[in-house]
């Protein structure tokens, strides 16, 4: 009884985070407790910003090929002004929140040069486009991971004109942890270097379009990009290398004062006419006074207006992610050998024997579902960086999708209980698709979803063919909770009712049925099975003609 209570307390309250573990489990538990007491907040975020981040290479690195950087450089050159990469959080307007064990602090972000690209909205006047530029929100989010590492992400929230009008051009109710269910517009997530991670068009909580960011790849300007003022844009016609021509309204807001240093912060812009541009901004202390409280005083200024119409090739698709972002969902690397991931994993898994031992023990003897998160380090080793527990004696793990965080793998268990599956569940499959769509896979070709069952059998799911997996995922669009539930409903019907992958069925039969499902539904996924030590993996293929599986050991 006592043991059970202790187990309950441990499993329901502790989420351990550690990075390339040199620490013992006991130490990790303590550090996690301390972290939970000292919640990441605006003060700590600011201290980290100036004490660590501003001194790092990451802070000063700019992606010259990033669309925003490219467009700003282009237009500053056209207007003969000096390019500025100055950006600064507005420290006094912080919002703190948690997503699972990821603690986030959001600040409005001020730019020396801020670029806004308006896609479509062809019927708008230039004045109306300016209003949209004014309404757009720029945020910087500092995300503290369970292991203490802090990631910086920039988030742009650009509304469609109709939504902005409905909101009287104030969309400040939208934050990075809450998007108004009626929001219509573009949400873009970028690294601090301005490299785009993903750009999504959202309508009523649904992702309706993902914009593949190839605009920066327009090396041949004549072929792939040209000024709309130079020639009529052949809207809708095919581009030479895919995509189609579309006109974009691009606008860069410049603040001369801020451009020269972290002195003045733009927080909003008002346009009185096409050629006169008025900004409201707040005067801040210089960088040398970072540790002092800012004296923010609104004053007026006039800056340059740099509107620009450009005709570019647009690449759109639902669930079509950037080649250059963190998601790594690159079709060019299709048909990876699943054994490569398995072989990488087996030796590294042995390094984390305690984690896997705990997970297996929890599956076979315990009453808690657990998932470990793996991240590859620079040497290519998988490292167990954190784990999350479900509730004691309750099937399932509640799993928030972390914003902008990339993983290389998850390994979880299903423990013994009535109704428990000895195979992947529809929830596991939906989660895999959500991580793919949301850009949480650092490299989809190497990503694995591990499972240890109540029978001490371990399986891996890897993405063998990214293009196929993308098409499969497109059948289940939407990352909001309602859509996720509906998608799981449909997936569950296929897996349980049509393919009979369900509880109460032998593991051999469920292996066969799972392999059959993956094959027949063109998922692009490969099922693999590990030996008891997770030291040797075999591929499981379904032979449609013979209606049986073949097992091929990895070398």
């Amino acid at each position, binding site marked *: 009884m006592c043991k059970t209570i202790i187990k309950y307390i441990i499993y329901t309250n502790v989420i351990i985070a550690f990075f390339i573990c040199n620490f013992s489990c006991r130490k990790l538990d303590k550090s996690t407790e301390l972290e939970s007491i000292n919640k990441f907040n605006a003060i700590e975020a600011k201290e980290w910003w100036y004490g660590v981040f501003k001194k790092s290479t990451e802070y000063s690195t700019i992606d010259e090929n990033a669309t925003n950087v490219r467009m700003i450089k282009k237009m500053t050159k056209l207007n003969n002004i000096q390019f500025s990469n100055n950006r600064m959080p507005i420290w006094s307007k912080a919002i703190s929140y948690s997503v699972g064990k990821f603690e986030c602090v959001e600040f409005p972000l001020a730019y020396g040069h801020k670029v806004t690209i308006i896609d479509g909205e062809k019927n708008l006047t230039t004045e109306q486009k300016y209003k949209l530029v004014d309404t757009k929100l720029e945020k910087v989010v500092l995300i503290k991971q369970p292991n203490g590492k802090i990631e910086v992400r920039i988030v742009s929230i650009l509304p469609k004109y109709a939504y902005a009008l409905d909101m009287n051009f104030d969309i400040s109710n939208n934050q990075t942890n809450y998007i108004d269910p009626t929001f219509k517009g573009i949400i873009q997530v970028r690294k601090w270097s301005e490299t785009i991670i993903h750009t999504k068009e959202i309508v009523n909580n649904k992702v309706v379009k993902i914009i593949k960011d190839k605009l920066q790849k327009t090396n041949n300007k004549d072929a792939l990009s040209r000024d709309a003022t130079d020639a009529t844009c052949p809207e809708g016609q095919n581009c030479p290398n895919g995509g189609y021509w579309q006109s974009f309204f691009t606008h860069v807001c410049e603040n001369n004062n801020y451009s020269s240093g972290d002195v003045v912060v733009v927080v909003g812009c008002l346009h009185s006419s096409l050629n006169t541009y008025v900004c409201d901004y707040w005067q801040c202390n210089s960088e040398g006074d970072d540790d002092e409280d800012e004296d923010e005083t609104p004053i007026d200024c006039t800056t340059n207006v740099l509107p620009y119409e450009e005709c570019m090739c647009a690449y759109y698709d639902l669930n079509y992610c950037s080649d250059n972002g963190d998601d790594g969902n690159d079709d060019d690397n299709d048909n990876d050998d699943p054994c490569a991931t398995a072989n990488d994993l087996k030796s590294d898994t042995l390094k984390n024997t305690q984690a896997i031992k705990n997970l297996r023990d929890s599956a076979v003897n315990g009453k808690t579902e657990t998932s470990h998160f793996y991240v590859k380090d620079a040497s290519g080793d998988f490292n167990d960086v954190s784990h999350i527990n479900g509730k004691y004696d309750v099937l399932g793990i509640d799993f928030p999708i972390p914003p902008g965080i990339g993983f290389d793998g998850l390994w979880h268990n299903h423990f013994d209980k009535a109704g428990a*599956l000895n195979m992947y569940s529809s929830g596991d499959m939906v989660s895999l698709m959500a991580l793919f769509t949301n850009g949480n896979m650092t490299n989809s070709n190497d990503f694995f979803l591990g499972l240890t069952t109540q029978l001490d059998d371990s399986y891996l799911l890897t993405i063998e063919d990214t293009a196929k997996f993308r098409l499969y995922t497109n059948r289940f669009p939407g990352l909001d909770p309602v859509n996720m*539930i509906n998608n799981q409903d449909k997936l569950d*019907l296929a897996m349980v009712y049509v393919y009979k992958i369900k509880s109460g069925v032998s593991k051999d039969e469920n292996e066969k049925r799972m392999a059959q499902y993956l094959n027949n539904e063109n998922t692009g996924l490969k099922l693999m099975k590990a030996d008891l030590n997770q030291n040797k993996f075999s591929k499981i293929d379904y032979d449609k003609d013979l209606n049986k599986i073949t097992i091929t050991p990895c070398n």
Partner: protein
Amino acid sequence: MKKIVSSIFLVFVCLNTYSQTVDPLDKFIGTWRWVNGNDTMVIFLKKETMVEVHNIVVLKGYNKYIKNGVVQQSTFPSNFNSNNSFNDTYFNLTNRDDSNLNKVSGIIGDYQNNKSVSLTLNYISATAINFIVTPMSGFHVNGIPGPIKLPSDIILIKQ
């Protein structure tokens, strides 16, 4: 004697025909309600084909849960019409256990916790069904930790 044999044969044929044509899903069709003080659960079930999932025939349904007089979740559309096609229903049930034709199951949304839970309906009589929700194995994307907010093991009465 010949008449008796013919009659038995006829009864057998009729029974066999009946068993082939009566779908076990049919007895679940309709509106079902559970009321306990100020708590209410209403579900509406209709049989339709799910084109997107191998054309299987399912019970498509809407549900509404009221606790202490306050609507906790409702998937009924504002323009609900039982005669319309249920393209946007929020749960789909099938008979997944060949040995028990009085049971249908599937997934239903516990929207207060942002996650899917397993739903089983057990047929008791022409006027009563048993409604049971249980947790499911695996990840619940965006799921909020905590007990299921929907009532379970309740008896719904045919309306």
